[in-house]
């Protein structure tokens, strides 16, 4: 059982969680992720780590409610528990002194890019962050990103914050000015694909973090396979970051749509009785604690 020790609403539909998970907190590196399962009947969902505090034994995740599990998770508060959290999984981000790096992120992707940006800065890079969102109320961790960046540009689709436009507009300007040596792009697939297109002409190394569907997260099932340089790679163990110029984004989009119908049905069921679902989760996890205590008591006897 993994207790939630603090939460914070960071944007509309996006919530930050600090979760007690000492083993993961100790080992976490930027770019890695965890897999969570909320309760006994839950699915396993990968979520990128936004930070960790090894001393306090906590990890931070920032969650956008887009599927049943993430929506349900976002209804939980400090004091609630998550049944299973496993990690840190995947390879950490590549950290070295590339020169000038552009860290491009969209919406909740900013939370995932943030720890890598911080590490890149520590490694001596000039870090230029380009933070985007559809609208002002979907921007996350803008202040944190500013703190670790030499320059920060904010863009929104509707112009409610920063400049109006897409993140690729700014990236294009920087690339044209010949200012960028390395790019990390984290966000929705269309955004990452667009970034890859911008940097392709000048062959600037661009890494993207792929959010494919996973089950175990250890390489055992192969469900997260993505086509990279025309060969099958497992996002969970070979990634999640890959060289964007080699990623087949069409296959990624197609495979991410595999369970569209079931996902829709699950969300509808949750929305029919959200409070009931939260109650069910709390009850189920409480029973787990009781069962465990009973076994421990018996073993002690």
């Amino acid at each position, binding site marked *: 059982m993994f207790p939630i020790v603090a939460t914070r609403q960071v944007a509309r539909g996006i919530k930050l969680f600090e979760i007690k998970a000492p083993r*993961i907190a100790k080992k976490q590196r930027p770019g890695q992720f965890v897999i969570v399962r909320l309760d006994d009947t*839950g699915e*396993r969902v990968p979520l990128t780590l936004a930070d960790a505090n090894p001393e306090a034994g906590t990890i931070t995740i920032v969650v956008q409610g887009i599927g049943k599990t993430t929506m349900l998770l976002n209804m939980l508060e400090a004091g609630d528990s998550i049944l299973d959290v496993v990690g840190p999984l995947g390879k950490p981000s590549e950290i070295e002194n590339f020169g000038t790096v552009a860290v491009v992120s969209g919406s909740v992707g900013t939370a995932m890019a943030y720890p890598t940006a911080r590490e890149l800065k520590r490694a001596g890079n000039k870090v230029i962050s380009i933070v985007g969102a559809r609208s002002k109320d979907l921007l996350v961790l803008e202040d944190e990103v500013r703190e670790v960046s030499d320059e920060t540009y904010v863009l929104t689709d509707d112009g409610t914050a920063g400049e109006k436009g897409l993140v690729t507009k700014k990236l294009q300007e920087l690339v044209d000015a010949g200012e960028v040596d390395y790019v990390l792009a984290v966000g929705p697939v269309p955004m990452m694909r667009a970034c890859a297109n911008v940097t392709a002409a000048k062959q600037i190394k661009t890494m993207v973090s792929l959010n494919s569907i996973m089950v175990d997260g250890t390489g*055992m099932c*192969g469900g997260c396979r993505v086509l990279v340089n025309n060969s099958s790679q497992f996002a969970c163990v070979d990634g999640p970051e890959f060289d964007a110029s080699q990623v087949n984004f069409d296959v990624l989009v*197609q495979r991410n749509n595999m369970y569209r119908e079931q*996902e829709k049905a*699950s969300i509808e069921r949750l929305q029919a009785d959200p409070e009931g679902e939260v109650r069910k989760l709390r009850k189920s996890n409480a029973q787990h604690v009781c069962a465990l205590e009973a076994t421990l008591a018996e073993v002690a006897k």
Partner: protein
Amino acid sequence: MTDKPVSNNPLPNKERIKLPRQRVPEQEAQIRACNFHEVNLGFPPEMARQESLRCIECPKPGCIEKCPVSVNVRAVIDLILAGDYLGAASKVREDNALPAITGRVCPVEDQCESGCVLGKKGEPVGIAYLERFVADWERETGQFGSPVSAPATGKKVGLIGSGPASLACAGDLIQMGHQVHVFEALHELGGVLVYGIPEFRLPKDIVHHEINVLRRRGVVFETNVVVGKTVTIDELMHEEGFDAVFIATGAGLPRFLNVPGEHLNGVYSANEFLTRVNLMRAYRFPEFDEPLYPCKDRDVIVVGGGNTAMDAVRSALRLGAKSASIYYRRTEKEMPARVEEVHHAKDEGVHFEMLVNPTRFLGDEKGNLTHVECIRQELGEPDDSGRRSPVAIKGSEFTVPCQVAIIAAGTSANPLIQSTTPGLATTKRGYISANEDTLATSKPGVFAGGDIVTGGATVILAMGAGRKAAKSINEYLKGLNGAAVETEKAAVN
């Protein structure tokens, strides 16, 4: 003093060999093909007694010799005849920590039952059903036939993985008085017993029960720990105080066919398909959240001929597939699956297409699988495994409708631990190198066994490795004591 114990079998041998083998009751094929309940229902006590009466009590029992963990089958059968079912269960547990499981999934026709003298002329004693009977009796009557452990040694052993190798090892080590801590990467304990083998062949409750027996005996289990990621072997030994470690993480990565179209929606590895169905209970969607690409009213093809392929195809059938087929590149004779599993699959309506191999998966504009193109094969010269290798027949390609394809073409080594453990030697194929007799690796105090050493094998072979490891870990720990005494002596001098 004579070795021959008093027998509880009242019949003379010539009467015993006339008795027919008892047929274990099963759920009817048409009914079971629509549910996930267990196929074999097991012996009631009277049938267990009848079957036990058939044993002619060989002076040198071939059944014991052929059992990878050397269960004292003869003594067990005698205890059944004495009506002491709990005693029989304890007797099995002396050599086998998981009798309710092996009694269900062991390939007995190649093991204990192949050593039974009766099998030479007729049918062997149904040893697996008897083993299962006593284990089920123990569980269903809420009793624990667990032996008493040796005094505590104060030594701590970490077992990586909670599959059959690890559980068997845990049973022996706790018996020897060591502290045992099992680490599992997934959220549920049991390894392949829960993510791989379906409910209808091995109910999860039985696995949980066997694990609870170990827990009551003092084994500590920790889930959600991916050794190599969450913690490394070196950290376990140097920071967490483990005196020895046993790596039993299973085989790992699924093999694909590497043919075009394998990324289409609807193409699964058997590992993923079975993990979704078994571990994640996707067959109970929406009660359980994990989704599964629908099999209902669809044509499902499983590529492969092993037990995993049988488990996958029979699961697909139970999920309402319109047709569920096995496509195998050799003939039925070469199929590695257990004979009983193949029979069960056939009875349930699984279609078998032999000497075929997929060449291409075809899909629609959304990327959903619609057809599979295959090519016919013929058998050529024998390969390394001694089986004749299939050769494609030119121009024999054909296309069949298929919306779900499951690839059960074996697995390869998962490099997670090897790549994060300096000094741990591996084989050319990436498995962990371990001494055949001691299962010791190149790293002191680190042992390895099961599929991560041998490549994909069976539950009972993994258990055999677990027991072997326990024995040599015990020796190793004794050696540590010796070394400690030596150091103390040196200090005094």
